């Protein structure tokens, strides 16, 4: 039995240590907001925060996440939405929305690290893939937030 710290709660899980964190979250902890897209850490749909860093959970063995603070899209906001989620609604960023949990988690981590990212910072950090092509609005939403103070990533960590 492993114990994970997810969205501010301690969660015992009875799984193989090599099971990627993604599947523990989705199938064992009932947190389906984090998505499977490629299984090989290319697309970033599975991005969660591990100790505040954006991590592609589809290739992270759950054993590596033990003792660390994991935050998923479900835990990003508390009573109110995270500023990234607010900006995503304001700028109508998502289309199908499937990649957006990962996109939002990556953006939240970027803004926590760098509250006023440049275009080059955004290019370097936002490597998540989106088949619908929401990139124009992802950039616009992040840049619009740089004028406002960003809250730290992690929500209820």
């Amino acid at each position, binding site marked *: 039995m492993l114990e994970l710290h997810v969205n501010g709660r301690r969660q015992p899980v009875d799984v193989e240590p090599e099971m990627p964190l993604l*599947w523990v979250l989705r*199938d064992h902890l009932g947190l389906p907001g984090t998505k*499977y897209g490629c299984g090989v850490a290319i697309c970033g749909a599975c991005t969660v925060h591990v100790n505040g860093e954006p991590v592609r959970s589809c290739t992270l063995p759950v054993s590596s996440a033990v003792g660390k603070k994991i935050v998923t899209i479900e835990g990003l906001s508390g009573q109110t*939405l995270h500023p990234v989620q607010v900006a995503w609604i304001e700028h109508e960023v*998502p289309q199908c929305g499937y990649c957006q949990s990962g996109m939002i988690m990556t953006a939240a981590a970027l803004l926590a690290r760098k509250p006023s990212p440049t275009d080059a910072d955004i290019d370097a950090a936002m*490597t998540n893939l989106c*088949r619908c092509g929401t990139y124009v*609005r992802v950039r616009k939403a992040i840049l619009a937030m740089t004028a406002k103070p960003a809250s730290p990533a992690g929500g209820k960590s």
Partner: protein
Amino acid sequence: MTTTTSRRAFLKASAALGGGFALEFSFPLVSSAAAEAAATEVNAWLLIHPDDRVVIRIARSEMGQGTLTALAQLVAEELDCDWARVSTEFASPNASVRRSRVWGSMSTGGSQGVRSSQDYVRAAGARARGMLVSAAAAQWKVPPSDCTTDRGVITHRPTTRTKRYGEVAAAAARLTPPADVKLRDPKDWRIAGKPVHRLDIPDKVRGKPVFAVDVALPGMLHASIAQCPVFGGKVASIDVRDAKAARGVKEIVREEDFVAVVADSWWRANEALKRLKIQWDAGADGAASNETIDVMFREGLADTSVPRARDTGDASSALKSAAKVVDAEYRSPYLNHATMEPQTCTAWFRPDGFLEVWTSTQNGEASLSAAAATAGLPPEQVEVHKMMLGGAFGRRGAPQDFVRQGVTIARALPGVPVKMMWSREEDMQHGFYRPASIVQIKAGLDAQGRLLAMHTKIACPSIVRTLSPRSISPNSIDSSAVRAFNDMPYAVPHQRVDYAMRNGHVPVGYWRAPGQQNVFYRESFLDELAVLADKDPVAYRLEMLAEGDKNRLVLEAVARAADWDAASPTSVHRGGALANGLGSFVAMVAEVSVSPQGHVRVHRIVVAIDSGHVVNPDTCRAQAESNVAFGLSAILYQENNVKDGRITESNFHDFPLLTLAEMPSVETVLVPSGGFWGGHGEPAILPLAPAVCNAVYRATGKRIRSLPLKHHGLRAA
């Protein structure tokens, strides 16, 4: 009222599941809208709560294109309700069967979601409004014509008495709907035509379980699937010993053409699947390759007995007498849809004999038919829960392979819900691909370089022949294979189009704007002709378009918006293209630079679209951006190659998607001219490849006649 689980009730239940399978809920549930507080179904399209909340039923699917919100806007516009109180639910495919298709078609493709249902959904809103007014008037004992409506409130003008929709909805529902209703003139729209926020976005940014892969049911198991890597092949034998012993594995399902492992989590199912030793019988096509497909196409191009998709004037004679004859050969590869959400289907054979299915579908009716046929059940005993689609682009409409598989797998475990999801690798190698094709074009020009005659030979698989083989004969014409040539907008007196249907074994399907590769060929070739004639490519096209032609207007609009006649910035080169399709007219200018090392940078795309009417200008712009990203991925990188009968690509490392850093700015100029309804989900991809490649020509002198660009020594900067 419907008596099946509504999507929203299901979502509430599955969201409440939280950490496990603790929550029990029984079927059938009543409709969520009714369960909450006796909402009244005024007509099939809308329900009104006593507190004035309006629930609008949506028959088409939402895959990110914004149709759900646009249709709700159209109903709300005519209903004249308060937009802030509107929510939606998907119309039930099972109820559609039982209610004689009261919602019409559920098919969501061809950019038709809004344009082919706008008339009857608007009429439904207008009829409901008429009934609400009549009900209020009857209670006041006044003529309905003395009453007006505004944002869900009915006012009797002479006395200024008011009633809210929620107060009279129940009485209204008992009235006979008005036979004739007058729809609002679009110039008077207050909800439609406005860039309202999309209704599906708040749940999506919260990570709510809205997708088919998010389905969670008590006791549900998970399945991963392996299909024969050679299309048309079969399972020869399997050795299940290692897989069966793996942790969590509950069942191994062997069918003629696939094997599935069912386990208590998807990862365990997929890991066990990798340990299955499967021997495949490749069947007849185990040796097929790019080369054999090429030979097939070339045989078709040489076949003089193929049918003519167009034969106007006398192209053969005109080519013989032309001052100059130019020819070129263009080609395109197969392309997968590669939806971010892999194909998925959850099926549950309930103990009471009813089958429930949850899936990402572009056509709820087609999914229900496929599920019922697979299960051997009457359609009345099947429900399909339409979930939000994690992308679709044509993959999830006509082909319902994933539904048949999901139902087949669950049938092996009666009473147990089973969620099947394909791995990315499976999804990459078992698509319904954009057809590959080779096209040869020959043009006859006069002494001034004007186009007099064009003879086009097209060798291309037929999508209809793949998806619906009985509806088209092998030597006939598939319209999407000849599009852009058989309906060329330019005034060219002599035109002939030959179509050689050469199908091969690779399944083909409707990939965003089917036939769009022909626009690449045609508009690139026209650019070649303009260069030969030493004419500006926009002016060259305008010469062949009559005054007032909508093609001409949209081309002029984009040229103005892109400042075509002004010099472009240093090292930036422009290319243009024109197209029409999916009911709309679209013209584009691409600004591109290419470094001496071959690094291509697309800086800016300007696109003008005339769709007649615009229901939500912001989602229309989003769709233009989407088409640019989707199309640039294909232009720069993507191809699906065939070797040993199978697709060689397997994931995003060898089938890359455009990244944010590579995304150009997109300026969308909406020029709706009224009088018709065109689509927005696909048209903007039509002129993209030629606009970009024509700009590449100006940057490099290199004429691009095949894609992707990586084969021409060009890659993204």
